[in-house]
């Protein structure tokens, strides 16, 4: 019964997309003025940040069908680049965020060149290896990253002489970043590049045989998605004021992936819901200290069970069973 109501809401949303988007934007804009509770605002900022991060992963997973389970590496690279630069040089935070995004993107280029030709799950493994190598390097390279101590004292961002230090300030910062990202992504998805991506996702071999330079498009896709992950990381550095390798463990990568799957892959809206649900859920159960993680794990299992295509019904990838193995 409740499931049917849920389905009806989803269909209604899908039919009147523009109206709901407009509504959502209005609600989000009003939120910090209506809510005084700083804790709720803090969670709201984190939620938008995770939406940004999972959206950036969704571009990679949902649109070219590349399984990236090491996305946390680019988040970490963005965060550490921002922390390192901002604590050593006096640069405007907008420039720092941009640089961080590009650095993350660059690393994905280095990773992608040798590995993108690997199929599905093999590529996934290399991303996993890369994520762990990144984390361990951060921990060991003490002269650059201060190793396990992390980098504290990330300066407060300033613009036009105004110090952006409150939750409300950061809220609007991440809102703008997210808005830009979604807008840009929407435009790209609906362009020739986006169509190339989707054709790669649907059937890479067919697409290649039609003359699409799949490698070039896959690299572009990877670099685009990881750029925004780096931006998200840089934002995190400023918001938290402190970065440490503890925040960039493999669990986070799985979390992003879960957000994408739970929300629904291959749609722009999917990660919005997925990111929101999986960020807010642990907070709801915070008073159950010991059982918090149990509930979290079970929740993920339940959602995937009842809606394997994701809450907003993106497409799932059916396993390719038509191929037979040559022995």
């Amino acid at each position: 019964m409740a499931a049917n109501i849920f389905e009806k809401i989803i269909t209604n949303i899908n039919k009147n997309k523009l109206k709901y988007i407009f509504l959502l934007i209005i609600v989000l804009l009003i939120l910090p003025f209506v809510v005084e509770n700083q804790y709720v605002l803090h969670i709201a900022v984190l939620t938008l940040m995770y939406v940004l991060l999972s959206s950036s992963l969704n571009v990679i997973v949902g649109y070219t069908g590349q399984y990236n389970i090491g996305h946390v590496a680019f988040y970490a690279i963005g965060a550490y680049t921002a922390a390192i630069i901002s604590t050593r040089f006096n640069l405007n935070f907008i420039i720092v965020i941009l640089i961080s995004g590009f650095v993350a993107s660059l690393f994905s280029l280095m990773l992608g060149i040798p590995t993108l030709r690997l199929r599905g799950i093999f590529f996934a493994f290399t991303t996993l290896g890369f994520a762990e190598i990144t984390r361990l390097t951060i921990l060991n390279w003490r002269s650059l990253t201060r190793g396990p101590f992390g980098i504290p004292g990330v300066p407060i961002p300033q613009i036009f002489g105004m110090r952006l230090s409150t939750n409300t300030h950061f809220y609007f910062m991440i809102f703008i970043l997210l808005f830009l990202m979604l807008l840009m992504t929407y435009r790209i998805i609906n362009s020739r590049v986006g169509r190339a991506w989707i054709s790669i996702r649907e059937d890479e071999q067919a697409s290649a045989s039609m003359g699409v330079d799949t490698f070039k498009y896959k690299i572009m896709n990877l670099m685009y998605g990881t750029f925004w992950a780096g931006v998200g990381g840089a934002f995190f550095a400023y918001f938290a004021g402190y970065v440490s390798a503890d925040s960039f463990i493999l669990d986070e990568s799985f979390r992003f992936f879960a957000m994408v799957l739970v929300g629904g892959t291959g749609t722009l809206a999917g990660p919005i819901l997925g990111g929101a649900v999986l960020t807010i859920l642990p907070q709801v159960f915070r008073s159950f200290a010991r059982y918090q993680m149990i509930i979290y794990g079970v929740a993920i299992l339940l959602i995937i069970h009842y809606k394997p295509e994701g809450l907003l019904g993106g497409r799932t990838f059916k396993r390719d069973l038509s191929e037979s193995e040559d022995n």
Partner: protein
Amino acid sequence: MRKSYLLSLLVLTVIFTFVLSAGAAEDTVKIGLSAPITGNYAEFGENFQYSVEIAADRINANGGIRGREVEIIVRNSEGKPNVAASIAQEFVQNKEIVAEIGDFTSTSCLAAAPIYERNQMVQLSPTSSHPDFARSGEFMFGIVGTQAAEGPFNAEYIAKEYLGIDSVAVIYINNDWGVSTMENFVAAAEKVGLEVTGTEAFFGGETDFSAILTNVKQNNPEGVYIAAMYNEASQVVNQIDRMEWDVAKLAPSSVFSEQFLKLSGESGEGLVTNTFFALEDPKEKVQSFIAEFRERADRNPNLHAAVAYDSMMLLADAIERAGFDRVAIRDALAETENFEGVTGTIEFTDVGDVVRSYMIMEVKDGDWVVQEDYR
């Protein structure tokens, strides 16, 4: 049909919990506890919870603080710095919470510090030993002492004087605590003429130290300084024993616990460490704490548990003097005088640290024995 029932049940539960967690206000004084209840540090966070709750119950049995009952709000930081920061945000937002105890790791404390400082709430960490923590803010306090004091004590009094060795190798855990401990020890060793033959790092959760030990043994140190928590330390001594390597073993106070004895068995024999809390301490308040802890947790308290207990008692003492204003509590805490806890006399330095003096403990016949007392 069943599907939708389950789904609606889930939704209802979520809504219900959210409503419940908003909570009803009572005439109590609330203390926030931020600790790693799950995850890699769960056993340490658990100790915090037991100790603080024991303390709170004791206080309430004696009439509460200024007539109000103490209530502990427990939050799970999972050992992650950014979660600790979110918890800080929740605590400072709640007008009824007057002070906070936690977290376990220095990185979590440091991540949360700006939020507590900005909102003028005390963060009293039972176990943060990083020299940078307490000085990072007026509202930051730590009571376990810092490695700036422990390192020199280990190097001078344990290694050189008690054990009489001239060379030592350091095996340390590659997290902020381990690195800081190693650095302070090495610096102190240099000053007292103790040769450090090499340092080797490992990551938390490591079980196999044979490679590191083989490396370290190459340089023939007379002793091995094991800067690790008791889990890894017991593995190290087990494997030293297996290698049949007769070397002196010393460690900072992190190993001092019943668990170390249980996990290392005979291999732990002869290990020397420092502490300021001993199970044989005849003082009545210590023994009654130990008894209560043993009843609730089914094990003896270790150093971490003891400092967590004292943290709550310290706060209670400060609140009794100052009332329920967050800033007043901070001032009263800083001015604490002649406080006798289960871990000894506690008085804060200008920056909010405590300078500890230690006893030397050695594992003899499977038990911890006090060998020297410098307190």
